[in-house]
């Protein structure tokens, strides 16, 4: 295996990694926001809205990410949405992740001890203040684990963005492999790199969890 290969393609690979990280972060934040909005909407609306939201959640969770990306990127122009690969990738991520985040927030809402709500209401605190001061701080603690878990899963899903020509890490590696006719070494290195990245972000995630729960948890 020639190391100058990696030197030659270094910049391209680094750029690809940058795109990977960009899509991951932008997609996670967007997904979190959208997911939270969906969960709140679900929580405070009636039967029909809930039904519609559930259809959205089930549709996105039941179909492959790849197909969703195809619909957005290749099908998009047919309903007025023409995007470049990277924005399409980020949008795809946001759409793909939103139901999972929504479910996490929703179960956080539902598993909240009703007794505390009753106590707050009986003292006369209004709903929004209850949500803001009592529910959210505690809920964020309890859902930190599934949230970080899923965000770490998203790091792996970035690889799929390559199918809609997003120039992220896998795509750049494939280019390098095709141009140099070496396939095993680059993909082996890529595998190890993803492995390391996931292990590292998992470790980071655990530290974040520990820190967050320490600050927010009051017995």
């Amino acid at each position, binding site marked *: 295996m020639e190391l100058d290969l990696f030197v030659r393609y270094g910049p391209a690979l680094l750029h690809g990694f940058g795109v990977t990280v960009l899509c991951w972060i932008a997609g996670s934040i967007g997904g979190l926001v959208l997911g939270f909005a969906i969960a709140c909407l679900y929580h405070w609306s009636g039967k029909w809205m809930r039904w519609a939201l559930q259809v959205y959640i*089930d*549709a996105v969770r*039941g*179909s*492959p*990410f*790849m*197909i*969703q990306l*195809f*619909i957005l*990127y*290749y*099908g*998009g*122009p*047919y*309903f*007025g949405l*023409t995007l470049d690969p990277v924005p399409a990738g980020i949008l795809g991520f946001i759409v793909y992740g939103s139901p999972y985040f929504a479910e996490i927030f929703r179960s956080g809402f539902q598993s909240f001890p009703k007794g505390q709500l009753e106590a707050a209401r009986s003292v006369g605190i209004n709903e929004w203040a209850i949500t803001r001061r009592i529910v959210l701080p505690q809920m964020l603690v309890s859902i930190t684990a599934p949230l970080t878990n899923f965000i770490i899963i998203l790091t*792996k*899903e*970035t*690889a*799929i963005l*390559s*199918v*809609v*020509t997003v120039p992220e890490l*896998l*795509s750049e590696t*494939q280019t390098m*492999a095709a141009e140099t006719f070496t*396939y*095993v070494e680059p*993909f*082996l290195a*890529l*595998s190890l790199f*993803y*492995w390391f*990245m*996931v*292990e590292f972000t998992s470790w980071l995630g655990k530290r974040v969890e520990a820190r967050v729960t320490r600050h927010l948890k009051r017995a």
Partner: protein
Amino acid sequence: MTAGSAPANRKAGPAAMHFSFQVIFHNLPFLIDAAKWTIAISAVGMMIGMVLGVLVCAARISGPAWLRWAAGLYISFFRGVPLLVQLLLFYYMLPYVGLNLPAMVAAFTSMGMCSTAYVAEILRGSLQAIPRGQAEAAEALGIAPVALWRRILIPQALRIGLPSLVNELILLVKVSSLASVVGIGEITRVAENITGETFRPLEIYLAAAVIYLVINAILAQAGRAGERRLGIG
């Protein structure tokens, strides 16, 4: 080898704005026929995963120290690397090590090895949910470890882990779409081919999505029925 046979003209003009159900109905049979490959890949992947997953889980929990470490490494690798990368790695590696097998083998192998790691983790969590006393009672009676696993621990772990295992199967159905990248003629691949001919990506990919949804909805229902029958959840 990347997927995405994009129609040459992505900037579709207003002329193409109408939604054509005709295209869907005309090509539905082809998509549904391709579903058999989707189901085959997922089913075989799951079966391999269940069999090997039990073994890897057993190795992870109760083997000698080196085996536990090796099993842990296996699980960590196959859960840490994206499946698409695993698939491509196997696809390129097979001929490299002298095995000139069809792409199908690469697909089945990587699906199987990946699901093994996830099943092993699911089972590990389920086993931890079994009260320790049950194993102690077996030890006190002189029951050997293999019998303990086979008769008492694994049956209960499967029951406890059923919801997660059904989930895993649904996940496999979704990631079977990645096999299109190495040319397997499952739903996504066929959809891409049809799109290349008809230039109607929106309709075709939506139709493909619906087929996946139907398969997964059936699996989810079956899973819930199974859970009810076993009296869990």
